[in-house]
């Protein structure tokens, strides 16, 4: 059993203590909900570090609040809360909708936003909507003087590969900042899988844009999940949609471009060919729906 390597278990209540633990000799493995860490350590995919650091009791990391024109979500906010919290529904409805399609209630109650992001699966259900929403992640580390130092980066830069992020070993992901949805926001989310619950995405598509009175789409972001080593932006499709009035022909062309933007592999859940077909068809269905409504 791989947990034999763990020499120390810490469950601090203050952020400074948690950050200090990340710097201990032999490093620290971060535990929050446990829904990924438990099966991954059992399967040997994660080798736990010398310290198991349970951050669930750290105060101030489970908040949902609005800071100016950003919705700020703490790293410990549960997926179930994303699904139900009226503040999230109002300011980031795309994210709330993605939470609706996430695993099962038992998993959503335990699983955290920060855990889903740091697990960095290309199929992670919160990654694609947050990429479409131009979210930023906030990382914290302890300075030499013992103070909390924070840095932010666009979420697109955070994911560096399957299961890999730009988080340094001495850093903790403390939160996510999402620009609040404008009054003319347009958003859609689609996830393909073999059953509605407890399924890992075969693909996911998230659309965020604004549509002014003249019906032109602006700030178009189309994000694709499970079709590359990280969630990715369908930039070819976005370019076809930006500043345009959506009609059936443009929806078809953009869906074609999104399929070309995808970089899927063959794996146990689907072939690359099938994933591209799904991207094309779900994107077209989504855009047709936007054009009609």
């Amino acid at each position: 059993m791989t947990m034999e390597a763990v020499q120390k278990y810490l469950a601090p209540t203050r952020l400074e203590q948690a950050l200090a633990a990340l710097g201990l000799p032999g490093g620290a493995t971060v535990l929050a909900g446990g829904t990924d860490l438990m099966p991954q350590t059992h399967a040997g995919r994660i080798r736990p570090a010398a310290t198991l650091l349970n951050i669930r009791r750290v105060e101030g990391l489970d908040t949902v609040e609005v800071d100016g024109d950003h919705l700020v979500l703490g790293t410990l906010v549960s997926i179930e809360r994303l699904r139900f919290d009226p503040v999230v529904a109002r300011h980031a409805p795309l994210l709330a909708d993605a939470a609706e399609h996430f695993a099962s209630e038992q998993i959503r109650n335990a699983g955290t936003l920060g855990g889903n992001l740091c697990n960095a699966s290309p199929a992670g259900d919160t990654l694609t909507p947050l990429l479409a929403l131009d979210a930023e992640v906030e990382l914290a580390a302890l300075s030499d003087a013992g103070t909390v130092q924070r840095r932010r980066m666009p979420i697109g830069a955070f994911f560096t590969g399957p299961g890999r992020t730009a988080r340094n070993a001495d850093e903790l992901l403390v939160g996510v900042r999402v620009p609040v949805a404008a009054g003319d926001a347009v958003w859609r989310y689609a996830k393909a899988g073999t059953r509605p619950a407890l399924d890992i995405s075969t693909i996911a598509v998230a659309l965020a844009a604004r549509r002014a009175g003249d019906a032109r789409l602006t700030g178009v972001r189309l994000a694709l999940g499970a079709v590359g080593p990280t969630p990715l932006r369908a930039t070819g499709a976005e370019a076809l949609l930006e500043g345009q009035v959506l009609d059936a022909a443009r929806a078809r062309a953009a869906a074609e471009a999104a399929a070309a933007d995808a970089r899927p592999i063959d794996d146990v859940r689907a072939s690359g060919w099938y994933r591209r077909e799904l991207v094309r068809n779900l994107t077209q269905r989504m855009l047709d729906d936007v054009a009609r409504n």
Partner: protein
Amino acid sequence: MSLEIEIGFTLNGVARRAKVPVGMSALTMLREVCGLTGTKYGCGEGECGACTIRVDGKTLASCLMFAADCDGRAIVTIEGMAGDPRGQALQRAFVEHGAVQCGFCTPGMVMQAAELLARDAHPDAAAAKRAIEGNLCRCTGYQKIVDGICAAAQALDKEHAR
């Protein structure tokens, strides 16, 4: 020898302490340390719901929870539902509607159904199905389970009316 952690928590309303290996799941602790075997090991990966318990008022898959993380929390298992009005109503309705076949999924189904009834006193079949989306029944007796959940809600309603 694995690192052991001392924890304290309430289990079905009773305070208790335990010493658990750092990597042990809450499920293994409940079954093998606390001796409460009503909570079942199905898949060990959070896919089947047979190990559903309530922690601080929310249902979780206990196979995915580290036992060490039970420290300071309020745990309710299927054994703790015996004295619970919703647990009793669900037990009767499950029996009356043939919702128990091999019975392996039943503890998890009841835990999850009780969670639903706590927030929605009048669930329809669609709400019941959504609530047990994380619970598998390998006998595939889902219709009878959904019937049982809806019947339990109606029975609780009648009790309240009396």
